[in-house]
Every structure is written in C-alpha cells, then in structure tokens.
C-alpha cells in the first residue's frame, strides 16, 4: 500500500511535468494550427540554460532567468521563422519545427557535449520530505508538484480572468474579428508562442535535475508529449491534462511492479516450455512489466486511435 502511495505521487510528478509541456503545446496548436515538434527541445534548452546559469549564480536564478530566455527565443523563432514558413502551409510548418528540433539538439551537443551534465537540485531542497514505510519521497519532488500546480493556477487565472486572457481566447476562435476590433493578433500569436515555450523551458529547469540533463532528453520526452496530445484529443486542454496524468501513472506503475508474463501464462493454464531458448514464444514468456513500461504509452495511443479516433476528449474527428 505504501509503495502504491509513493507511486501515485511519483506518477503525479511525471504527469504534471508532461502537462506543463502539453498545455503550452495545446495552446499553440489551437491558436496556429501547427503542432510544434520542437516544443520538447525548448524544454531541453530550459534545462541546459538553467544548468549554465546555476554554475554562476546557483539554482534559483536559473529558475527565473532560463525560462525567460527560452520564451524570448521561442517568440523570435515564431516571428522570424514560423511566420515565414506559414505561407507554405501546415506540412512545411511541421517540417520546419522538426528541423528546428534536430538543430537545437545539435546546438546543445555543440556547446555542452554528448554526455549528461551535472545539473543537480538545490541544496536547500536536498532532503527527504517524508517517508512512507521505508519509501522515501524527496523534497524536490514536492517542490516540483507545487511549482506545476502554481503555474496552472496562474495560467488559468490569466486565461479566464484577465483582459489579456480574454483577447487570447477570442483570438483562438475568431482571429479575424479580433483583428478587426483593433488587437494585434500576430503579436498575440507571438506572445502565446513565447509563453508556451517559456513554460516548456520552466518544465525543463525543474525536471533537469531529476530526469537528467542530456542531449537526448528532448526526443525521449517529446515523443511521449505528442502521444498525450493525440490521446487527449488535439486542441483539448482537459484532454491533455487527463492523458498526461494517465500516462504519468502508467509509466510509474509499470516501472515499479515486477509482474511477469510467465506467471500470467501459467495461471491461464499454459505449460512452461522446458527449453526456453528453443521455444518460438520465448519473448512472450520472459516478458516483464518494467520491460513493457516504455512502450505502454504508444500502445495506449494506438488502441485509443483505433477505438476513438478523435482522442479521449476531442470534439471532432481529428
């Protein structure tokens, strides 16, 4: 039971982290109709910038400065890159962001090398928050949970309660009308793109010390983020939240419960082959849950798409 609670919390950390990326991605997608393939690359940039800053000034300055730099970079890329490619259509836009993702990975390797960099949690948070029957839970993860939730409350407040948020929501559905009312819609787009990437950057800053800061971190998480978006339903913020949490828990639980296919097969009444290495089904027999864990999100995505092509919360067939 205690392991269960720790897993729930761990899964929550992963899920919220995924949602920090998914929310920005979804906002950008519903606004511009383009799925930013490089979104996870901004997450990686956040982690690397924060690492570089933390070498000079410590963790906390990086927490504030790195997302701002990432956001400004994102806004500039939208203004001078994406807007240019936009005229060619959606597929070239997607290809552009894919190229950007490749390029950012190469730049990160160019500056910081191929190895993982030693980006660590701050000493102030380097203690055990609590322990449930021997299973410890670090304070840094508590901090991550609170950071993520605080960010969403702020975002929710801005989107639903402020004038800026109203303009953004209006520009989501009727950009021309909003433009005619005298708002600078391209500016709004640039701002949303900047804020979305800054959120991804912030996610990178707080996730870097736990998940590791290495050049592959963008593609490792990025693919999962896209799965969340598709499973939740493209453009649906609630869908993204549900899918992120589901996938976060799915991965955490799969990693910590060592269920074996062997037991299941024996329980079902199959006979274990005596010479395992000669059996055609050897892979099925030796399968364990932690082994399958990494592919579960993709499997989940395929199943959801077959059963419900518009995603869990998608309104129209995507």
């Amino acid at each position: 039971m205690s392991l269960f609670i720790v897993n729930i919390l761990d899964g929550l950390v992963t899920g919220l982290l995924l949602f920090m990326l998914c929310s920005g991605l979804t906002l950008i997608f519903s606004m511009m109709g383009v799925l930013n393939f490089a979104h996870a690359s901004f997450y990686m940039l956040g982690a690397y910038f924060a690492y570089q800053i933390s070498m000079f000034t410590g963790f906390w300055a990086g927490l504030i400065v790195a997302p701002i730099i990432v956001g400004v970079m994102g806004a500039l890329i939208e203004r001078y890159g994406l807007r240019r490619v936009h005229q060619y259509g959606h597929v070239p836009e997607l290809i552009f962001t894919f190229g950007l993702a490749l390029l950012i990975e190469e730049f990160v390797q160019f500056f910081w090398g191929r190895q993982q960099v030693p980006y660590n949690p701050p000493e102030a948070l380097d203690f055990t928050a609590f322990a449930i029957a021997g299973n410890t839970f670090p304070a840094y993860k508590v901090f991550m949970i609170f950071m993520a939730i605080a960010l969403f409350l702020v975002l929710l407040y801005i989107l639903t309660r402020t004038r800026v948020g109203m303009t953004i929501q209006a520009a989501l559905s009727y950009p021309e009308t909003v433009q005619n009312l005298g708002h600078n819609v391209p500016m709004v787009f640039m701002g949303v793109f900047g804020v979305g990437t800054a959120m991804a950057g912030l996610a990178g800053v707080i996730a870097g010390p736990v998940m590791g800061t290495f050049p592959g971190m963008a593609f490792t998480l990025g693919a999962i983020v896209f799965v969340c978006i598709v499973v939740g339903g493209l453009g649906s913020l609630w869908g993204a939240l549900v899918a992120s949490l589901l996938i976060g828990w799915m991965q955490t639980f799969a990693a910590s419960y060592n269920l074996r296919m062997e037991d299941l097969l024996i329980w079902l009444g199959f006979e274990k082959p005596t010479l395992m290495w000669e059996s055609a089904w050897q892979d099925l027999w030796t399968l364990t849950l932690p082994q399958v864990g990494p592919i579960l999100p993709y499997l989940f995505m395929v199943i959801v798409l077959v059963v419900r092509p518009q995603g869990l919360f998608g309104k129209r067939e995507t």
Partner: protein
Amino acid sequence: MSTPSTNPLTAGTSRLVPLNHALPWIIAAVALFLLPVIFDSRAALTIMNQMAITIVFALAYNMLLGQGGMLSFGHAVYMGLGGFFSMHVLNWMSDDPWLPLPVLPIFGGFFGLLFAFLIGWFSTRRAGTTFAMISLGVGQLVASLSIIIVIFFGGEEGISGNRTDMLPFFGWDFGQQQEVYYLTAVWLLIAALGMYLYSRTPMGRLANAVRDNEERAEFLGYSQRNVRWISFCASGFFAGIAGALFAINFEILTEENLNLATSGSILLVTFLGGVGFFIGPIIGAIVFTLLQTVLSLHTEIWALYVGILFVATVMFFPFGLTGLLALHVMPWKLGKIGYLVKPYAKMAVPTLAFILSTAAVLEILFHARHAGRGDNEMTIYWWLTFDSHSPLPMIIGLVIAGVSAYALVKLAPGLKAAWDEATHMGEAGK
C-alpha cells in the same frame, strides 16, 4: 490526359512520343552500368550502394509526402521490417536454398506492404498533423518493440546473415561488392520505374487530388481514406524493397534501422531534394549521401551543418534543390539564362566567404570548448593552423562573415533585377 507532368525534365511533349519519356531512363541505366567502371574502389562502391538504397527509400517516402501530402515521422518502420523479414528469409534458406538472391527484395517489399496495410488501416483516416503524430507513435512503438521481441529483431545486437548462402545467379554468388552493386542498381531501376509509372496511373493522380483538396476528391466520389491507404501501402512496398536491399548490402539489421533518427533523415533527404518533383528525392539522396560522406570525414559537427542546411531549405527554398534548378527552366527556355551569369558570378565570392568563415567560427568555438586540456592548436581548411583559444582567429572569422554578409545584402537587389529581366517574357520571348 492534359494533366501536366510532375517531372519537369520529362514534361512537355505529348505522351505519344515514347523516346522523350524513355530517354532519361536509358541515360540512367547506362550511367548506373558505367559508374562502377569509373569508380571501382571498394569505398566508392559502398557509397554508391548506399546511395541507391537511399534513393529507393526516398522515392518511396516521397510517394507519401510529395504525391499524397502525408508527412510521416516513422517511415523507417516499413523499410526496417522489410529488411528484417528479408534477412530471416535469407537465413531460413541458408541450409537448403531454392531461390537466388536477386529475388529477395520481393519478400521485403511484400512484408513492408503487409505492415503498411495493417497500420495504414487506422493511421490514414486523416492526413496532416494527426497522421504525422500517429506515424511518430507507431514508429516509436515498433522501435521499442524491437528491443523486446528478440526472436524476430534479435534484441540489441540485431540480426545478421550471409548473402552468399542463397543460390548463385548465373554464376554470381554476390560475394563481390561489384556484383552486389549491379543487383542493387537493377533493383533501383525497377523500383524507380515502378514508382514513376505508378505516379502516372489514375491512382497516382488521385493521390495528388486528395493531397490538394481532400473534400473535393470526396465529393467526386473517391474515398480520401482509401486513396491515402492505397498510397501508403504502395509506399510501404517500395520501402520494404529498400530494406531488403539494405539487408543484402550490409548483412545486418538493428534497432537503428527502425528508429526516429532514420525516419527523420529520410524526411531530410527527400525535402532537401525537393518534394514536388519525381527526381527530387533522387537528387536529395545523391547530394545528402555525398555531403554526409565528405563532411563526416572532415568535421565532427557535420550533423550541425546538415541541420542548418535543412532549416534554411525549409525557410527559403521549400521546393528543395530540384525546385531551385527548376526555377532556371524558364529563363533557359526564354533564352535569357545568360542574364543570370554575371550576378551569380558576383555573388559567388561573398557566398563562399560567408559559408567558409561561418563554418570556421563554429569549428573554432567547438574546438575551444571540447578539445582536450592543453590541446590548443587547431587546423582548418588543411593549411590554416592557429591557437583556438586566442581571440584573434575568431575575430577575423567574424569580420569576414560580417563583411561577406553585408556584401551579399548589397548584391541581392542586383540579382533580383537580373532575375526579373531573365523571367520576363519580353522581346526575346516566344
């Protein structure tokens, strides 16, 4: 059929003149036959084989992207699965062979087709972003599965085989690199011709129609989903052939043949070449393979250059290298290509200076950051040797880059004017 051809080189005259259409193919066949006679070193043969495989794969990929408007981030799966299956066929036959090696690609093709059929069933329901995301997910799924399903994929080591185990083909047992080259080249011709002819069938035209306006195609009575599905299957078939050719050439397949990096690089190749033209992927594959071979010999950060080139292509030349060449067809036909020679010659020096100096700055930066302690001396462009930690070379590089960039900006209006003149159907026009 009054539909304009997608191939600018074979476009024009009526379809009743077969020679005009057959000529590029005859030239290609002769070139493929003669190439190993001119470049007969082992390394050259390896590069040419790799090029041929990439061409088949890129052409298959362009059936989706260029002809069908479907952007896939997981097309390596069909090539990889075709390759894995061919390798198994090869190994099953090794004890008691009853087929010669040249038929192996057919097995790869049908296995690729089978999987494209299964996965296309749910992934081709929608085009655009959704299709792209599903292809990514499926690609990741298969790549991760390849580590788990050891019996088919061989786990981390992959699977390997020996191509000489199959029956000899007219005395050839394909132990020689050159024999493998001719096998690959013949299959390249067959596959390319097949894909070209496919693009001319009503089915190939329908793929274009669905790409351009899926709703209209639907109202004309064609199921957009089925059209995409069939294109997807055809593409999977030819990707599988490419996979089998890979299996024959390298005799080993691993997870690397299925993963996102491979899928991404074929997108790169195809887009660099130009997605709107049949020969685009061919040019892309040739240029990319050469670029990769040459650059990776001389610099550690070649992937960075390729990335920059790719992003620049997407931003400034969305029709790729072939598109850039095709732009010159009109001045050529108008007989005004001479107008462009002078401005191009003027631009050549600053362009070269800009590229070389930017690359030099990047190399210096990379060397300064990553070279071992005490290893301060570096050499670029074969004869320039200096201390990478001193600021002077960096400053010189930046200054040259700045000056040449300024010169390019200053020269751009001249080129624009010459271009307008050259494409203007004025006095010298038809």
